[in-house]
């Protein structure tokens, strides 16, 4: 009985409820002294701080810097990853030649590159973009490589029998086939691009959300740290929703669970 009634309440309501319970618990904990506000701050304080930063306009300069860095590293990383992925997947020789080196570079934790990039590219946005690119590039590269290598050979043969040249094969079969793989990596690579540039800002910059967080941390301002995190989470969620819509449009030909049941008639 209770199970069937529970099913009638939309999941979104339960999700909001969970968030509310957690936040209220946090707030209550801070009020009663179970959680020291100095270490844990308070949701109401964090919210007030976010509001102050947004309404006061102080946040925009930093948000713009972070978004610009993340966008640039995303664009450069995706283009590089797609081009190299295609090239190395289609050319056996190049693929085999680069294989060990790509593994070596990819095995490196990117954070250790941050100081090097600071030296090479300075405190401005380009050291953060470089860090973001090293993350995005490999995610997209491996997915593109996989997507092109694993394209269904029957589809390729069918297109060739229908008269496809090598160029037409790339356009009609390989790119669309690789797109599925590339898209499945976009969510991850956008998230990682933002993480990478924030880490870059955190380690040395004069602008950006990461800079705000590190400044707040420097004066033990936990409210400021949480406010920066909240804003960052909001940005990542908003961008994720956008990618979702784009993906749903571009991959509209793909079977979704709801379609599978529909089947068809012969």
């Amino acid at each position, binding site marked *: 009985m209770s199970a069937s009634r529970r099913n009638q309440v939309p999941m979104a309501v339960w999700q909001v409820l969970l968030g509310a319970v957690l936040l209220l618990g946090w707030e209550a904990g801070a009020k009663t002294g179970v959680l020291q506000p100095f270490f844990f701050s308070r949701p109401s304080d964090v919210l007030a701080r976010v509001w102050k930063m947004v309404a006061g306009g102080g946040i925009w300069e930093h948000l713009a810097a972070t978004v610009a860095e993340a966008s640039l590293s995303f664009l450069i990383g995706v283009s590089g990853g797609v081009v190299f992925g295609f090239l190395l997947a289609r050319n056996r020789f190049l693929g085999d030649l680069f294989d060990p080196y790509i593994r070596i570079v990819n095995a490196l934790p990117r954070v250790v590159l941050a100081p090097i990039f600071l030296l090479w590219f300075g405190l401005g946005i380009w050291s953060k973009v470089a860090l973001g690119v090293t993350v995005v590039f490999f995610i997209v590269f491996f997915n593109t490589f996989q997507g092109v290598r694993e394209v*269904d050979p029957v589809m390729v*043969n*069918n297109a060739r*029998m229908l*008269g496809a040249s090598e160029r037409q094969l790339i356009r*009609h079969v390989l790119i*669309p086939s690789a797109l599925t793989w590339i898209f499945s990596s976009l969510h991850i690579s956008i998230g990682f691009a933002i993480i990478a540039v924030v880490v870059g800002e955190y380690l040395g910059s004069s602008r950006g959300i990461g800079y705000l967080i590190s400044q707040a941390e420097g004066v033990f301002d936990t409210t400021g740290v949480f406010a920066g995190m909240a804003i960052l989470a909001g940005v990542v969620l908003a961008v994720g929703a956008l990618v979702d819509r784009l993906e749903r449009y571009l991959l509209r030909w*793909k079977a979704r669970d709801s379609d599978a049941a529909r089947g068809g008639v012969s």
Partner: protein
Amino acid sequence: MNGSPGGTAIRFQGVTKRFPGYTAVQNISLEAREGSFLSVVGPSGCGKSTLLNMAAGLTQPSEGAVEIFGKPLTGINASAGYMFQQDALLPWKTVRGNILLGPELRGADAGQAEQSAREWIRRTGLEGFADRYPHQLSGGMRKRVAMAQTWIVNPDIVLMDEPFGALDVHTRLRMEGEILALWAGSRKTVMFVTHDLEEAIALSDEVAVLSAGPASRLVGVYQVGLERPRNLIDIKTDPRFVEIYRSIWGDLREEVLKSYERIQA
């Protein structure tokens, strides 16, 4: 492009195909007369598809040669269409997009291509489904799209690799009827690969039997003298059909048993 009627459309001359580690087919000589329907049967894994791929130019023979209308085949066979066993439709193109693929790749006039696509959508009974994607269609309808996709470019030779293997019996019977109807008016040469002897006899003018693989040889070529048009529903109880079936099965049976033994060994 066609020679005189009754000429040879496809000729395998002493064709052998080796893959690393094993030989698929061994010294096969076989001809498909122009405008005829030739089936190739044999136990699973006997290299039927390899033979078809060599006629398509997708694989090259290790020894021997393939001739198409009297000319040695190098590269892709441009006068052949190929219906694959597996789904070969592009999932990101609609039914119309898939049917238009051939004309588009060959640089046909867009208006004319559109018109002939409409015609093929009608002929294959796909009206109302032109804007669907393959995943929204049943197996039988996907085969119809594949059929239209292959035939719209009007190839002189149609190669088919167990195209209906994955369909249920009734859909399969309907599709076989549709293929025969399409072929009847076309004077195209068909090379049809199947493991189903009944299907082969019902559809073909000639049935070629391959021995169990690896290193399959040609066991024999049998004429099917049944008149056309054929009624595929009743033909299997026709005494002459049964007689042809018995004589071919006598030879094929041994090969099937051999391939069983090899699998169990």
